[in-house]
């Protein structure tokens, strides 16, 4: 109970925007996870690559911002993973990850 109260009244808790901003960003993670089940032709190279750089930078931002925001940090670490995975699916579908395929595309 005490732990819940501490969370509820925290300066980065659910009564503040410092909580809901990161919650919104979990939407990217959820969307990414849903999209892993779709065919790789639907993956946007531009958007996925942009997400990878974006989440990398925002992990650092979450650490440095006042107040420090661990929820945001975890969110972007997760998004980084999902987006890198999606990028690898895209690359694989494009033939960039083929090994020892001299007569393949490219």
């Amino acid at each position, binding site marked *: 109970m005490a732990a819940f109260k501490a969370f509820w009244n925290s300066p980065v808790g659910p009564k503040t925007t410092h909580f809901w901003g990161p919650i919104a960003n979990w939407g990217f993670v959820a969307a990414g996870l849903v999209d892993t089940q779709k065919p790789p032709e639907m993956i946007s190279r531009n958007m996925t690559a942009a997400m990878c750089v974006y989440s990398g930078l*925002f992990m650092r931002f979450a650490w440095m911002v006042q107040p420090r925001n661990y929820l945001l940090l975890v969110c972007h670490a997760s998004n980084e993973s999902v987006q890198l995975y999606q990028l690898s699916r895209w690359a694989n579908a494009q033939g960039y990850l083929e090994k020892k395929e001299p007569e393949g595309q490219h």
Partner: protein
Amino acid sequence: MAASKIQALWNHPAGPKTIHFWAPTFKWGISIANVADFSKPPEKISYPQQVAVTCTGLIWSRYSTVITPKNWNLFSVNVVMAGTGIYQLARKTRHDHFSEVQVPGKE
């Protein structure tokens, strides 16, 4: 005079020597990627992703005015991001629900 203004910007707590500058600056990449995707066929747009882009943009526009330091760069990028998300959602919705002409026998 101009030099000291530039100095003030350079040394700003949300200026180019800090992550508070580069993270939001890079976030423009998401909007740019989305604008580049405006020319993609609507079948390829992902509803979950664009809903995430839109909601994130809207909520973060608010967030950026209450963090320390206050971050107008972050504010503007999120406003634009929400805009691109809304446009993509409108494109896909219009395609999926308001242009049934080429689909015979489907009501």
